Each structure stands twice: as C-alpha cells, then as structure tokens.
C-alpha cells in the first residue's frame, strides 16, 4: 500500500511538473502553430490547435514585407562587433585588475562595478546627444560603440585570470614572453570556458536588444532585426498574426537553437551575474 501511494505521488508530481513547464513553453508553441495558420483560421473562435493546412507562405510574406536580409546582417554585425570590441577592452583591463598592483586599482574597479548596476536606459538621452554631435546617429557605430566596454565581461574575466597559478605566468616570463603575449597566449586560452560563457551572454543580449536600435536608428539600412519585426506589425496593421508570428520565429529560432545546444553554458552565464 505504502509503496503504491508513493508511486502515485511521484506521478502526480510529474504531471504538475509538466504543467509548469507548459506554462512557459506553450506560448512559444502557440507562436509556432499560429505562424503556419491561414488568416481565416487565425480568426476562428474558439481557436483550432493544429493548423488545418500548414501554410508556409506566411514566412515568405513576412520576409518580403521589408528588407529582412539587411536586418539580419545588421543584427549579426552589431552583435559580433560589440563582442569583439568588448573582448579587446575587457581582456587587458581584467588582466590588469587581476594581476597587477597599482595605485587606484580598487577605485577603478569600483567604477566598473557601478557601470554594471546602472542600465543604459537611464542615460540614453545624453548618449544620443553625444553621438549626434559626432555625427554617428543612424549608423551601425551608434549601436556598437556605446557597448564597447562591458563591466560584466571585465568582472568575469578578472575572476578567471585570478585563478591562474602565479607559477605559470612566471614560467612564461622566464620563457621570454612579453606581458602582452602572456595575456593573449597563456591567460586567454586558460580562460576559454569563461570566454564562451561571456560570448553567449553578450551575443544573446545584443541580438535581442530593441531599445537601443529603436532610439539610435531611423532608416532601414541600419535597423536590426527586433526593430524590423515591430515594423512588420505596423505595416500589417497589427492584425495579421500569422505573418507576425512567422516573422518573430526568425528572431526566436536562432536563440532557441543556441539554447538547445549550449543550455548549461547559457544558464551559467546569466546566473553568474548573481555572484
């Protein structure tokens, strides 16, 4: 008897677990299903679960309703560009914070930590004014440069560099390696897991970002995918949900694919902020 109640409890818990998972996953599934429905089916009440006919044309409609190839290229350029500049600035800074003692080190590191706490939404206005003085508004630079230094990246890499044993660095010094070379050839390879973690974090953040490109761009040549997709909604009068959902799949699928393959890394990357 006891045995069977325990088995039953386990099954009930499993059912509840699946229910919880569905609360978070089903909306995406609904997005997917809607993207394949025809207009009449979208506006059917009560709604149908599976599309009666799988209509792939929605994707074509979405794709051809704007310069989506341009948006995708811009999104990739921005996300990769930001990541490259962030690494170029974060690696030396993190190395200095982790490995050198110098006057003002704690003060400077404190400044970086403050930058970690205050989000860009608070100060977008003065940055906009600055960038327009530089003539960079409505260029890809306006999307990349403000994110050139990542406090989070510096913080993560500093932790990783601090864990490298002194002896390895000393061995490299005796091997006539310059400080610059020690940093890039010895330290950076040893921090590879952290670099991957940070790279994923940064890429996802900038791929998804809507606020900054919305503010800084006003023409299709420099718009990124998230802004482009909201154009879709405006262009279609906000009613063609099947096309809108098809468009959103372009934004969501790459991230879900990355998440599927690098789930652990990604969850670690985001949770790392709490430490």
């Amino acid at each position, binding site marked *: 008897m006891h045995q069977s109640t325990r088995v039953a409890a386990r099954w009930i818990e499993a059912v509840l677990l699946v229910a919880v998972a569905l609360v*978070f996953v089903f909306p995406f599934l*609904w997005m997917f299903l809607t993207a394949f429905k025809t207009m009449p089916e979208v506006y059917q009440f009560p709604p149908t679960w599976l599309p009666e006919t799988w209509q792939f044309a929605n994707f074509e409609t979405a794709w051809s309703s704007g310069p989506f190839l341009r948006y995708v290229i811009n999104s990739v350029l921005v996300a990769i560009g930001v990541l490259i500049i962030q690494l170029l600035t974060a690696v030396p800074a993190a190395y200095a914070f982790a490995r050198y003692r110098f006057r003002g080190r704690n003060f400077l590191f404190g400044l970086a930590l403050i930058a970690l*706490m205050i989000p860009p939404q608070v*100060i977008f206005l*003065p940055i906009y004014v600055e960038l327009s*003085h530089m003539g960079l508004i409505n260029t890809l630079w306006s999307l990349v440069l403000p994110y050139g230094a990542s406090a989070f990246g510096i913080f993560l890499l500093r932790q990783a560099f601090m864990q490298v044993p002194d002896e390895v660095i000393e061995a490299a010094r005796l091997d006539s390696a310059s400080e610059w070379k020690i940093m890039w050839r010895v330290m950076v390879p040893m921090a590879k897991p952290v670099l991957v973690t940070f790279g994923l974090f940064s890429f996802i953040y900038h791929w998804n970002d809507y606020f900054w490109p919305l503010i800084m761009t006003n023409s299709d040549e420099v718009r990124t995918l998230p802004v482009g997709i*909201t154009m879709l909604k405006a262009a279609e009068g906000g009613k063609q949900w099947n096309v809108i959902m098809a468009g959103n799949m372009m934004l969501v699928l790459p991230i879900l694919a990355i998440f599927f393959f690098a789930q652990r890394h990604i969850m670690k990357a*985001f949770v790392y902020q*709490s430490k």
Partner: protein
Amino acid sequence: MQKAVVANSANAPLLQQEVAVKAGRLTKVRPYLYVLPALLFFSAFFFIPILYIIYLSVFDWSLLNLEEMEWVGWQNYADLLSDADFHQVLLNTMLFTVATVVLGIGLSFLLALWLNQKRKLVAVVQASVFSPHIISLVSVSMLWMWLMDPQYGLLNALLEFIGLPAYTWLADTKSALLSLVLVSVWKVVGYNTIVFIAGLQSIPKDLYEAAALDRSTRWQTLRRITIPMLSPTLFFLLITNTISSFQVFDTISIMTQGGPVNSTNMLVYYIYEQGMDYYNGGLASAASVILLGLVGLLTVFHFWTMRKRVHYR
C-alpha cells in the same frame, strides 16, 4: 611580501641606472595602459553621460536643434512635479515595480524549492521555465499581445472553456497595467528560479543533516536554515529586479504605447516620448535624473549591504 625600498646604486654605472628607470616606468604605466581602453569607453558612454544628463536637465532644449539651449534652472523639475501625467507615470512605475518584484520573487522562490532536485525531468522543467528569459522582449511582447487579444486570443478562449467571462487585458485602463505585470513576471520567473536554485545548492548539506538529527520539522528547517542562508541571493534579486522593473520599456512600446489613457506609461517610456517624440529635451532630462537618482540609491544601498556582509564573514 614587503621589502623596504633602498636605493643602492652607488656602484652601478650611470647608463644602467637610466635603463633601469625606463624599465621601471614602463612597468608602472603598464596597468594603466591596459585599463585605458575600457576606461575610455566607460568615460565616453557612461560617466560623461551621467554628468551630462544632470547638466542638460537645467536647460530648455530639444533634439531638433541642439545649438539653442536656454538655461532655465529648476524649471524642468518644477514642471515635472506639477504635471499630473508625470504623477501618473511615477505611480504606474511604482505599482508595476512592486507587483512585478513581489510576484516574480515569490513565485520563483516557491518554484526553486520545488525544482531543486536532480531528476532528469526536473532539469528539463528548469530549462523550460528559464527559456523566456533569453527570448527577445520584442517577440515576447508580440506573442502576449496575440495571446491577450480580446476577441481571438488564446487566453480568453481558455477562460471561456472553463466557464469564465472574457477578460479585457490590454484594452482597459483597469487591466492593462496588470497584464504588463503578468508578461514581465512570466519572463523573469525562470531567471530568478535558477538563481535561487544556485543559491540553494551552495548551502552546505551538513547543515540540513544536522537539522535532521535535531528533529527539525520541514517548516523549521525552511525558516531557520534555508531562508537565512538564502538571504544574500534574495537581496541580490530584490535589487536587480527592482532596477530592471524601473527600466521597463519594450513591452510598453510594443503592446500599449503607454495607453489606454496613460494607464501603462512608465518612467523610461515617458522619457522616450518627451525626448524623442515631443522634443522636450529638458523635461526628459529632468525625468532621467530622477530615474538615475532612484537607481543610484538602490546601487549604493546594494554595495553598502554587500560590504557589510563581507565584514561579517
């Protein structure tokens, strides 16, 4: 290791001494050189803007013509504080923040207690709960707009299915803010849960074993061990969730544009509208400074308590 620095170069040739000084200078400057690029970016796009926004907030200016700026002193702040719309914006921001933070943290705490298991099914559920966090708010907003569609949306269909009346969701002043809270909570719960689980797993197991030997009840263990040991995590989430709730923008911009009748207009969206749409730079700057003050206070508070905790350990 510390050593007294004693200059002893009486017997060293002068030339070598100079070489030494040069080498010494390079090693002294090197750390600053390495920090410099990051520092330049931080200065240009973080520290200078912070000072600049304070400066801008005492001028009457607009993005249409940046050359003409008129000094108005506290006028922008006075205008803000007497503006009924801004009162509404502040109230909305506060309500939204409190609701999102309380619901978001409360639900995720319960979920974390439940999902802190090493079963395969649970790992899948954890990943599912987390997944909205990495999806663009653009897609999340549009998806929920569709789900919340008053006539054809899935949510109302489900309500009808279980015999409840249809809900107004985003269409009504009374329900729109709550709907936005729902979307934000849905997006953040997974992140909070995973952070809580990480916190739970860092609690030493022997504490629980000791409690079990002391015949502690489940409730006692939760109150006396789990919650106190989790307080740093809880505090971190409170601060970060509050700060990010202050920043809410994407959902408003896509789902409601602040409406209906200003009922979902909040600080960042207000700043955006004033600065970018109504070309009222002064008012937008003053509102930015107020937001900066709020976030700054929370940040200082966060660092202060963190430092205190370090002292206790």
